């Protein structure tokens, strides 16, 4: 059978998908064991037991200085920043995207500005944000929001502007005005796209979060990784990176499922 025609069943797909991940893990453990055989105090490739030990201290023991459970505190701080930043960006993208996409005068006035902001690399704005907003939470949240909002906004605006002209005409022949078209025709049809945009924005949002935490912070997943880097503590860095990946996957899956549940009409021909 040709490879383009081979369909893998659902259960087999899980198995096949897990295979390369397991292989990589196995490869790592072999390499780590090799290094530890030569040098029992090797720090570059820690063994799983070493990671478990280092992480248990961060998870289950209170930090002597702050009296906090560091892993929990890092996770909550990072998620709060990410949630606030993404939340603000999503709201701005939805409201402005709808207006820009549906109302030609708004597009004429704000379109060039949005394009100009979108082409600025957000990291280049980080010093500006730190100077203007201080080194606290505001600057980090602002970096995430400014980093992901323009792309999401343009995506939503483009999607709304591309709604078939016939629909907008039809709505007007049914007596709808601009506002009614915005909330009853454009908004509901922009929502699945918004979920999609948030999913795609998660990657950049994590990049901006970790960057801002690495530069100026005293708690957070990115802060911890860059702090323990000084001591070559790969036994903390690797579990933290894995934890970030797990959080990112969980958010992506939650958004995908949420979109499918909330907008059954957008799932194509589902009869």
């Amino acid at each position, binding site marked *: 059978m040709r490879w383009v025609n081979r369909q893998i069943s659902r259960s087999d797909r899980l198995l096949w998908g897990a295979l390369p991940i397991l292989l990589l893990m196995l490869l790592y453990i072999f390499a780590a064991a090799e290094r530890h055989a030569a040098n029992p105090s090797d720090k570059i490739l820690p063994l799983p037991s070493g990671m478990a030990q280092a992480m248990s201290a961060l998870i289950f023991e209170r930090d002597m200085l702050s009296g906090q459970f560091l892993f929990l505190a890092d996770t909550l701080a990072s998620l709060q920043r990410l949630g606030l930043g993404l939340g603000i960006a999503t709201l701005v993208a939805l409201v402005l995207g709808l207006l820009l996409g549906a109302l030609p005068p708004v597009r004429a006035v704000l379109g060039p500005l949005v394009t100009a902001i979108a082409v600025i690399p957000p990291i280049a704005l980080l010093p500006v944000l730190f100077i203007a907003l201080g080194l606290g939470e505001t600057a980090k949240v602002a970096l995430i929001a400014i980093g992901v909002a323009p792309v999401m906004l343009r995506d939503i605006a483009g999607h709304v502007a591309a709604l078939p002209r016939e629909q907008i005409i039809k709505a007007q022949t049914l007596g709808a005005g601009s506002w009614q078209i915005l*909330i009853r025709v454009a908004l509901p049809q922009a929502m699945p796209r918004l979920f999609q945009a948030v999913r795609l924005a998660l990657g950049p949002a994590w990049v901006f979060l970790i960057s801002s935490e690495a530069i100026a912070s005293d708690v957070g997943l990115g802060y911890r990784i860059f702090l323990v880097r000084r001591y070559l503590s790969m036994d903390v860095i690797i579990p933290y990176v894995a934890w970030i990946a797990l959080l990112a996957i969980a958010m992506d899956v939650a958004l995908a499922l949420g979109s499918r549940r909330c907008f059954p009409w957008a799932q194509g021909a589902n009869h």
Partner: protein
Amino acid sequence: MSTLLSLRDLWVEYGDKIVLEKVDLDIAEGSFVSIIGPSGAGKSSLLRVILGQESPTRGTIMLDGAPLAPECGPDRGVVFQRYSVFPHLTVLQNTMFGLECAGSPLTARLFGAARAKARAEATAMLEAVGLGDNLHIYPAQMSGGMQQRLAIAQALIKRPRILLLDEPFGALDPGIRADMHGLITQLWREFGLTIIMVTHDIREAFSLGTRVLALDKRRHDPHAPHRFGATAVYDLPLRPREEEASPREETAA
């Protein structure tokens, strides 16, 4: 029969390309006007101008003796070939949309007794077009013919003065198309509609219409074909409305 819509000396130009020139028409109330013509003869442009989607370069359009605003409104309903229904609303919600917009300017949603009344009205309209058993499905779950039935119900619930059809059955199978011809004739009679239909199908134009307009260019300049526009070259009154009563043969192609 009184004149409902009158076009006087109507020109439509895009840049230096003249699409329609000197169109003079009077459309009587209760008539079913079919518009035919070759591609590019301005059939759809004429419909868009009457709909208010575009404004004419020159000329006037009067509806019930008053000049028409160059914007779409609830006095003119429309059914396009595609994309006429809202994919995010169910059949019932699609049909109620027009009632909700009129009843609630701020939220465009009705509640309580007003909602129940709109719902009953929409259900009755959907039963009239044969969708009474499919109130809660989305357009993506429906066939092309059902979507066009929905589009017609959606437009008719506003009781438009004129119903404009832009190749409404062009994308349908021949069998379904024959059913739709029966439906539109029946609705036209029941609701006393005035219909203007653009079509490519000459058989459809003659079997449905009470009057057939053929648009084409009267003059042709081989060196500058875009400088002459089309107009109504044939205007064929077919039959008065009363003769409609006898069912005509409808042969599926």
